[in-house]
């Protein structure tokens, strides 16, 4: 079962994708490993490697060592600017 990945704001615009289902290779079990997988696509995907990109798993903001698994909703986005 794949992961659901969402992208927001400037990142969504740069990637040209707002959401995708992604079946990560075996052994990819953390946010940072998943991120490295996506960056490896090259081109615009290298923007995901920027230090300020934030991540959420199942709608909670997390660090890179947070685990990800089948069925999770993972989101990548720039620092928030509401208020």
């Amino acid at each position, binding site marked *: 079962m794949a992961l659901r990945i*969402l992208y*927001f*704001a*400037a990142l969504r*615009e740069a990637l040209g994708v707002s959401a995708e289902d992604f079946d990560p290779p075996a052994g990819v079990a953390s946010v940072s490993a998943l991120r490295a997988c996506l960056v490896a696509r090259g081109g615009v995907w290298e923007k995901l490697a920027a230090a*300020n990109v934030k991540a*959420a798993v199942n*709608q*909670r*903001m997390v660090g890179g060592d947070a685990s990800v698994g089948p069925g999770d909703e993972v*989101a990548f*986005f*720039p*620092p*928030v*600017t*509401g*208020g």
Partner: protein
Amino acid sequence: MSAQQAAAGEMLVSVQEADFDVGAETARLGDGRRDVGGIATFIGLVRDANDGSGVSAMTLEHYPGMTERALGDIVEQACVRWSPLSVRVIHRVGRLQPGDRIVFVGVAAAHRGEAFAACEFIMDYLKTQAPFWKREETPEGARWVDARESDDTAAARWSAAASASKG
């Protein structure tokens, strides 16, 4: 101060395109209660300039689902720290123009200190934890607003204050 359960008040969070009625929202925080000593409110508006450019409009994008959850978590943290009697948070999304209201935070408490502190805490955390993004329309074109370091500093001082009061 020891962590306490939130007092049985109304804690309500909304994310909406529509404008809100400041008077009605403020009044509702104290309606039917005799234990409220004060209400602190913050209302955020769209400015017509930012970072040296005119701003003719802005569009707020958010992460539906996570936004409501993040705002609820922030209100919950405020309730643990200050035990306010009622809290109302409204954040608008979609396209807004200079002078339009963006955000309302209202806190009713027994004493002003708790109301002011909880209101400021909620705004500081909202700025750094709630998944909203602003895209401004300027004469030079549209641009995504950059996060400010001063917002991170403002949010961080609350955790510094918590550690200091424990020590």
